[in-house]
């Protein structure tokens, strides 16, 4: 009797564990896994319009064929794809360089920077504001012909003003990339600092004792050891970059001439404007998903820690 009681107590104790993780799995199953599977299914159907979202028929890979052949839809899709890659690159290279520089300064024991906390907060700040607000802010700042930036430059005596920023391809892309950079370099920096702080200080001390310069320490000790963190940053930024939607959508609506249209905006346009082509939107989402998976795998292969190979053999 006492034995069973004890066993029961143990069992109950185990069940509590499941209860604690249940909320995540329930939410994940309903709001993430199911929609993902539903998207995969919809991409194979003729679901155009709300009335066909549930009552549709499977038509195979025709939607993907449209995306990979020459027509108005695929042209828009691949243009958007190119824009996304361009704007992501324009934002990511400065972002990771800036974050690395700042992180190495903040963690450099030689420099002993003052007011680190304040600077970290200031640099991180843009990330707290919602993207929608920032998009509207920049839209107003650069508005034409009357807007703060135009007025300022005119009052400084610049000629050829006012300038129509959002009708110029590279200016529009540049502003979007700048916003992405400005919003996210603080976040990347914090993660880098965390990564660098996780390195055993005795390695730096050993380096210093051996007469390394700060630059050598950075390239030979810090950078190799934060490779997993770099990988994490690259992958999250890649996913975030490929799904870029809010800033271009609210600020430029893909203008001028679809040069700032992103894949996520293309999916939105197909799915929620016009005839509600849910099938094409889903197919584009699946293509995007596959591209992201391939890029992430390629990145992790590139940045894999060579010493970790034996571990993998052990099945870890």
């Amino acid at each position, binding site marked *: 009797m006492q034995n069973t009681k004890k066993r029961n107590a143990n069992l109950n104790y185990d069940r509590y564990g499941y209860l604690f993780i249940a909320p995540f799995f329930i939410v994940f199953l309903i709001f993430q896994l199911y929609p993902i599977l539903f998207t995969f299914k919809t991409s194979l159907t003729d679901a155009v319009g709300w*009335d066909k979202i*549930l009552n549709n028929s499977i038509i195979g890979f025709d939607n993907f064929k449209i995306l990979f052949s020459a027509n108005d839809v695929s042209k828009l899709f691949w243009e958007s794809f190119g824009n996304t890659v361009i704007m992501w690159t324009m934002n990511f290279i400065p972002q990771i360089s800036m974050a690395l520089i700042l992180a190495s300064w903040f963690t450099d024991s030689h420099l002993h920077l003052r007011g680190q906390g304040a600077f970290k907060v200031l640099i991180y700040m843009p990330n707290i504001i919602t993207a929608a607000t920032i998009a509207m802010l920049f839209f107003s700042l650069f508005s034409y012909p009357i807007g703060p930036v135009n007025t300022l430059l005119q009052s400084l005596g610049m000629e050829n003003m006012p300038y129509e920023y959002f009708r110029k391809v590279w200016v529009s892309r540049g502003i979007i990339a700048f916003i992405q950079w400005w919003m996210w370099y603080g976040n990347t920096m914090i993660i880098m600092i965390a990564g660098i702080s996780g390195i055993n200080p005795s390695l730096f001390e050993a380096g210093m004792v051996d007469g390394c310069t700060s630059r050598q320490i950075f390239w030979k000790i810090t950078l190799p050891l934060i490779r997993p963190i770099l990988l994490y940053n690259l992958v999250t930024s890649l996913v975030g970059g490929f799904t870029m939607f809010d800033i271009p959508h609210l600020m430029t609506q893909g203008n001028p001439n679809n040069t700032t249209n992103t894949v996520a905006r293309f999916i939105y346009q197909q799915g929620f404007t*016009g*005839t509600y082509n849910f099938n094409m939107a889903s197919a584009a989402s699946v293509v995007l998903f596959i591209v992201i998976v391939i890029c992430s795998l390629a990145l992790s292969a590139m940045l894999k820690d060579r010493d970790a190979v034996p571990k993998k053999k052990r099945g870890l």
Partner: protein
Amino acid sequence: MKKFLALVLASMLILGAVSFAAAEEITLNVWSFTNELEGMITKYYLPKHPEVKINFTIYPTDGGEYTNHVDTLLAADAASADAPDVFTLEAAFVKKYTNSDWTADLKELGFTDEDFAIALPAMREIGQDTRTGVQKGLSWQSTPGSLMYRADLAEKYLGVKSPEEMAEKVKDWDTFMETAEELKEASNGACKMFVGPGDIFNAAKYDRKQGWVVDGKLVIDDSLLDELDLLKTSYEEDLDAKGTAWTETWFAGMNGTNEILCYLLPTWGLHYTLKPNCVPGADGSMSDDEIKKLSDENNGTFGLWRMTQPPVPYSWGGTWIAANAAKVAAADDAKKAAIKDLINFFTLDEDFLYQYAKDSGDFVGSKTVVEKIVAEGGTPNPFLGGQDHYSIFADAAAIASGKTWTEYDETIDRLWNDEATLPYIRGEKTLEDALAGFKAAVSAAFTGISVD
């Protein structure tokens, strides 16, 4: 629990049996996208109809939330208890629903052609199913357009002294452009004729003989090419302010920071856009006197505006009420009568519309009520220097047509601006390329519209 349920069921049966004998309670589900109709129902409708109970549901139109809810529910089970009996439709999506089988033929509810004749023509035409000509929606607000202009600038630069003279100066698009040139010369380029492409397009699209899509084919009416020419000339010769609606440039002309002569705005534009922006710091919650005081102190434009007829009669916006076809088909006579009564009350009931127009100053959708108000001397408006805006809107409403509206307008209008108008008038693309880009964008957005 079971006993309780049984009791409830039994009492419902009894109530049901009793109900057809005496004053029965009828519940109507009403869906809308603002609380405006709810307020009107509570204030005007329910006191007169104690037997009706209204379940009101609101979803905002932002991001298509309202239409998504309506669409999913109607697609899943249009006759379900939760589905709306009556729902309101905004200009952006009214045609999508009237041109579908989801909205009921109003004659099934007992309306007649004579009833519809009271409605203003544009509003009535927009509420019809384009496929069959059947009346499916009626409007309570009508939104005819006008041309609002700065009387002081018109007099200073053009010597125009009255709205009638101004109407002569903008009687068609050619004269409108001549006036713009004259204005440029007289003001030495300081005063612009209008803000930008959007202002012109909203009116110019009423020049079209056909809507965007006819028999599944995209139609670019010749009048739209004329509009592009007009806008290109205007852009190249600096006749307009090169701005867009709802931006700083647009408001700067309203509050007098910059000199812009004309705004093509409909009914709501007068009270909700122009007036609250006639001086920095004003807002919609202030009374006329407060805005006037602020405007007088800060060089605002209160009292400087006048209204006249635009180059082409147009309409911008509006709200329609329609009934859910599946619920009407399933309804008994009493419920049908209640649905009819609700729609009738807000769109055709002269006593109510007269009262509502007097209370709110809104421009209503009934011809007879509008005529009655105009006959009584209209609504002298201090913002317009005492001019009566009701009679101007009445003239515009009597001739504006809604025949070219299609369910594709919202998306295609935007694509026309982004893909054709701006690239062409800014000189980024030739006309051919701009039109080809526009066609490609339409073809990508709409399955089943041919663009050749």
